[in-house]
C-alpha cells in the first residue's frame, strides 16, 4: 500500500528521537560553581587531602553539594558563587604548596545521564571567556643548536680517537658541518669511525686545493626528528606550566609542524599567564656538602662555600655552591623502569658535559650529588624602572648517590614512583630547552562578552526560528506544522549530536551555523511540498502525489546537500578555531536536516494520511 511505513521504521525513528533527547538533555541542567584541586609536581591528591578539604569547608561554614576524588583531582561542588570564592581562599591558604585550586563550573548533569555518557555542549572560548594563545617554536634556533651540538660532538669524538683534523666549523647550509683534513687516509679513517656511531647523518667528501674536506649533514629524517623533539619538549614544558596556573580544563595542543595552541578558559590576566608560560628555567648539578650538619646550616652556621636549598617536599639540604655541570649540557632525559620495575631517569649529556661529569665523579664515588632546578618566574610586580620583577626560584629536584664514574650517559635511580621519574625527566629536559617559543597570536575574551555572545546567539536563533515556523504554518498549513516539528527536532538533534561528539565545541560562528541551518533546513520540505502540489495539479491521486512528491524531490535534495557538505568539509579542513566550529555545526546540520525533513516528516505524513482513500483535499 502507498505511503505506509512498516513498524520498524517508526521504532527506528522513535529510538533516534529518544537518544537525541537524552543526549541533548544535559544542556538543560546548568552548571554548579565548583573548585577543582589538583596536585603539582611531586604531591599527590589522596583521600587524606579530601578529608582535609572537607574539614576546611565545614570550619568555614560552607556545606558543599558534593566532594569527589577522581582522576587524581578533587572536585568540590558548591551552591553559590560566593561560597565558591570563600572556599577557594580557605583551601588555597590552608592546603599549602604543591596543590593548585581553580575556580570552575562543573556541569550539573544528573548521575543517570552521566552514566550513559551524557554531557552538556562544550563551549568555545568566545562563548565562555578566556585566553587563546598560538605559540610558534623557533625552529631555526632548534636547528642552529643542533648544528652547534654537532660541532662539539664530532670534535670530541675525533679527539678521543686521536684522529687529527685541521679544522671543524658549521657549514653555511645550516644543517651540517665541515671538517678539514690533511690527507685522504685520515679523512677515510674519520669517516670509518664516525659513520657507524652517527646514524642519521650524511657524509660527503671532496678535495679542495690541498685540503680534504668532509661535509657531514643531517639527513632529512634527522632534521625532522630534531624539529619534532623541539616541539615535543616545548609541549611538555607548556603542559607543566599550564597545570601550575591552576586553570580548569586548559588545552595545550600542537597545531601543525611548529605551533602550539594553548587555551586557558576563564583566565583574564593574560600578562601573568604569558609570563609564566614564557618563564625560563635552568638546571645545575651540585655536590652535596655532607660535612656541615643540616641543623647548624639552618641556623646559619655553614661555610661560605655552601648553601641551603629545599627539596620540593620541604626537606632542606646543604649543597656546595660549586657547579659540576649546568643543564645546557643535557641532551636528553627519559624516565623508564629498571629491571626490577623501579622508576629511573636516563640522562644523556653532550661530550663536553660527559667529560666534566666523568672528571668529577671519578673522585667522588659514593658521595651524593644534588640536581638543582632554577626557574625565573615573574612576580607580577614591576620594578622601579618599569621592568617586570623576576624572582629566581631554586629548588632541589633530586639528590642521588654517585655509584660509579659517570660518562655521557647515566641514570638516576631510587626514585619513589613513575610519576616522580616522569616529572624529573621533564625538569631535566626543561633545563636544556632546545628552542625558544614566541606568541604569534593571542585572543582574550572577557567573561561579559562571552555571556553576551551566548545570549545574542540564542536570541537570534529564537527569533529566526519563530519567523520561519510562522511562515511555514501559514503557507503550508498542516504540512507546514509537520515541517516545523521536524525543524525543531532538527535543532534538538544537532545539540544532542554535538554534546555526544567528544571534541566538538560550540562557538559563536557555530551558533550562526545552527541559525543558518534553521533557515535552510526547511528547503528540503519546501521542495517536497511544492512537488506534491504540482503532482496534485497534474491530476494525480492524493496518495500518488505524496509518494511522487517525496521520491522526485529526493535526488534534488541529495545533490543540493552534498555540494553544501563539500564546502563545509573544505571549511573544516582549512579553518581554525571558530571557523572549524562553524563547519562542524554546518556538517552536522546538513546530516540531521536531511534526516528530519525527509524521513521524519514522511513518517508523520504517512501516519496521518497514508493509505487513506477518503481524502479529498490535502492541507498543503
Amino acid at each position, binding site marked *: 500500500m502507498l505511503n505506509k511505513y512498516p513498524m520498524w521504521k517508526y521504532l527506528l525513528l522513535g529510538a533516534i528521537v529518544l537518544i537525541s533527547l537524552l543526549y541533548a538533555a544535559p544542556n538543560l541542567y546548568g552548571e554548579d560553581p565548583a573548585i577543582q584541586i589538583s596536585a603539582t609536581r611531586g604531591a599527590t591528591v589522596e583521600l587524606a587531602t579530601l578529608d582535609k578539604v572537607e574539614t576546611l569547608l565545614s570550619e568555614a561554614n560552607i556545606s558543599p553539594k558534593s566532594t569527589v576524588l577522581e582522576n587524581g583531582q578533587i572536585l568540590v561542588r558548591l551552591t553559590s558563587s560566593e561560597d565558591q570564592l570563600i572556599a577557594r581562599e580557605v583551601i588555597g591558604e590552608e592546603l599549602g604548596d604543591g596543590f593548585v585550586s581553580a575556580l570552575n563550573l562543573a556541569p550539573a548533569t544528573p548521575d543517570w545521564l552521566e552514566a550513559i555518557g551524557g554531557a552538556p555542549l562544550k563551549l568555545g572560548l568566545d562563548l565562555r571567556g578566556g585566553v587563546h594563545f598560538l605559540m610558534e617554536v623557533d625552529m631555526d634556533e632548534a636547528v642552529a643548536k643542533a648544528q652547534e651540538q654537532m660541532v662539539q660532538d664530532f670534535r670530541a669524538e675525533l679527539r678521543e680517537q686521536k684522529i687529527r683534523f685541521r679544522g671543524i666549523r658549521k657549514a653555511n647550509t645550516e644543517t651540517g658541518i665541515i671538517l678539514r683534513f690533511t690527507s685522504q687516509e685520515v679523512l677515510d679513517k674519520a669517516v670509518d669511525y664516525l659513520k657507524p656511531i652517527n646514524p642519521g647523518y650524511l657524509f660527503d667528501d671532496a678535495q679542495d686545493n690541498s685540503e680534504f674536506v668532509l661535509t657531514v649533514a643531517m639527513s632529512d629524517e634527522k632534521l625532522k626528528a630534531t624539529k619534532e623533539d623541539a616541539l615535543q619538549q616545548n609541549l611538555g614544558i607548556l603542559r607543566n606550566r599550564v597545570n601550575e596556573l591552576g586553570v580548569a580544563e586548559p588545552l595545550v595542543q600542537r597545531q601543525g609542524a611548529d605551533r602550539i595552541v594553548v587555551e586557558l578558559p576563564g583566565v583574564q590576566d593574560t600578562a601573568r599567564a604569558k609570563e609564566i608560560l614564557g618563564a625560563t628555567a635552568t638546571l645545575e648539578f651540585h655536590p652535596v656538602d655532607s660535612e656541615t650538619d643540616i641543623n647548624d646550616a639552618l641556623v646559619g652556621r655553614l661555610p661560605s662555600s655552601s648553601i641551603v636549598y629545599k627539596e620540593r617536599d620541604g626537606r632542606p639540604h646543604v649543597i656546595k655552591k660549586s657547579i659540576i655541570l649546568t643543564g645546557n649540557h643535557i641532551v636528553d632525559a627519559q624516565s623508564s623502569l629498571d629491571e626490577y620495575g623501579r622508576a629511573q631517569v636516563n640522562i644523556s649529556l653532550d661530550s663536553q658535559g660527559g667529560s666534566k661529569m666523568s672528571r668529577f665523579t671519578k673522585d667522588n664515588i659514593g658521595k651524593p650529588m644534588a640536581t638543582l632546578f632554577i626557574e625565573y618566574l615573574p612576580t607580577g610586580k614591576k620594578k622601579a624602572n618599569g621592568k617586570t620583577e623576576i624572582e629566581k626560584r631554586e629548588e632541589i629536584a633530586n639528590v642521588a648517590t654517585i655509584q660509579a664514574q659517570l660518562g655521557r650517559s647515566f641514570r638516576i635511580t631510587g626514585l619513589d614512583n613513575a610519576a616522580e621519574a616522569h616529572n624529573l625527566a621533564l625538569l631535566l629536559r626543561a633545563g636544556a630547552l632546545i628552542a625558544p617559543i614566541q*606568541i604569534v*597570536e593571542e585572543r582574550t575574551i*572577557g567573561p561579559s562578552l562571552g555571556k553576551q555572545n551566548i545570549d545574542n546567539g540564542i536570541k537570534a536563533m529564537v*527569533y529566526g526560528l519563530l519567523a520561519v515556523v510562522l511562515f511555514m504554518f501559514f503557507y503550508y498549513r498542516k504540512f507546514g506544522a509537520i515541517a516545523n516539528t521536524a525543524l525543531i527536532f532538527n535543532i534538538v538533534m544537532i545539540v544532542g549530536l554535538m554534546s555526544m561528539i567528544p571534541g566538538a565545541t560550540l562557538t559563536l560562528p557555530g551558533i*550562526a551555523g545552527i541559525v543558518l541551518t534553521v533557515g535552510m533546513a526547511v528547503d528540503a520540505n519546501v521542495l517536497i511540498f511544492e512537488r506534491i502540489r504540482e503532482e496534485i495539479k497534474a491530476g494525480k491521486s492524493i496518495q500518488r502525489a505524496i509518494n511522487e512528491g517525496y521520491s*522526485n524531490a529526493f535526488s534534488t535534495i541529495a545533490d543540493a546537500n552534498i555540494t553544501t557538505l*563539500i564546502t563545509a568539509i573544505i571549511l573544516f579542513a582549512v579553518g581554525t578555531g571558530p571557523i572549524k566550529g562553524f563547519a562542524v555545526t554546518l556538517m552536522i546540520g546538513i546530516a540531521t536536516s536531511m534526516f528530519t525533513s525527509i524521513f521524519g516528516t514522511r513518517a508523520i505524513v504517512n501516519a496521518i494520511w497514508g493509505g487513506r482513500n477518503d481524502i479529498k483535499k490535502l492541507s498543503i
Partner: protein
Amino acid sequence: MIELFKGTTPIRFMKYSKPATWLSAFLIIASIATLSINRINWGLDFTGGTLIEVGFDQPAVLPDVRETLEQASFEGAVVQHFGSSHEVLIRIAPREGVKGVVIGQEVLAALQSADYGNVDMRRIEFVGPNVGAELAEDGGLAIIIALICIMIYVSARFEWRLAAGAVMALAHDIIITLGVFSLFQLEFDLTVLAALLAVVGYSLNDTIVVFDRIRENFRLMSTSTPDQVVDHSITQTLNRTMITSGTTIFVLVSLFVVGGALIHGFSTALLIGIFVGTYSSIYVASATAVKLGVNRLHMIPEVIEKEGADQDALM
C-alpha cells in the same frame, strides 16, 4: 492554498537574458574596479596587529579616547564604536620592534588609569603578521579548492555545460559580494570568509535545484527549445526558490539585528550572497548553460537515472 506564483504559464526569463548579462557584466566590472581601487578592508585576522574591545559605563566620546591613547603614545590607533556607544573598538597596526603581545595590556592599562570610570575588558586579540598572511593564503586556497571540487561534482552529476554555468554563477556571487564589501569598506575577517563559503554552498543549492528541473524537463519536453525548457523549469521552481530564500533571509536578518556586532560581517556577507545567489542561479547559471548550447541531446546519452528512483521509496 496560498501560492506566491501560480506557475501555469511559464515566465519568459530567457527573454531578458541579454539585459541580465549586461547587468551581471556591469556588476562584476564595478566590483573588480572597486576591489582594485579601494581594496578590501582586511580585518585583524589577515593583517595582523592588535585589537582591543572595551566597555565603558557611560557612552564613550571617541575623540577623548583617541587623545588618551595618543598621550600613551599609541598614535594612529583606529578607534570606533562597536555595537553600542558604550563599547569601543581600538585597532593598532603591527609595529616594527614593538611586541604586539604587550600592546593590548598597555592600552587597557592606559584607559583604566584615565578618567573614564569603570573600563571593562571585553576582548583583546593579537595576531602576528605572519599568521595573518597565512590565514589569508589558506582562505583564498579554500575558496579555490571549493570551486574545483564543486566543478568536479557537478560535472560528474550533470553535464559540463551545466557545471560551467554553476561555477560561473558561484564566481559571479563571490566577486560581487567581495565588491560590496570593498565598496562600503566593510571589514573582512575570518567569519566573513566562512560566510563566503556558505554563500557558495547556498548559491549552488539554488542552481542545482533549477538544473535538476532543467534536466528532467529536457527529457519530458522533447519538442521545446532550450530557452523554453529553461523558462519552464525556472518557473516551476520559482516558488521554492523564493520561499527558501525568504526563510533564510528571515534567520539572517534575525542574526544581523540581535546576533551582536561580532557576527555582523558574517550575516551581511550571507545576506548579500543570497540576494545575488538567487539571481545568479536564474540568469548566470542557466543562461550560461544555454549559451554554451546545452540541449536535449546532451541529456539523453548519459542514462541518468534519478538516484533512488529504481529503489523502493526509502522515505
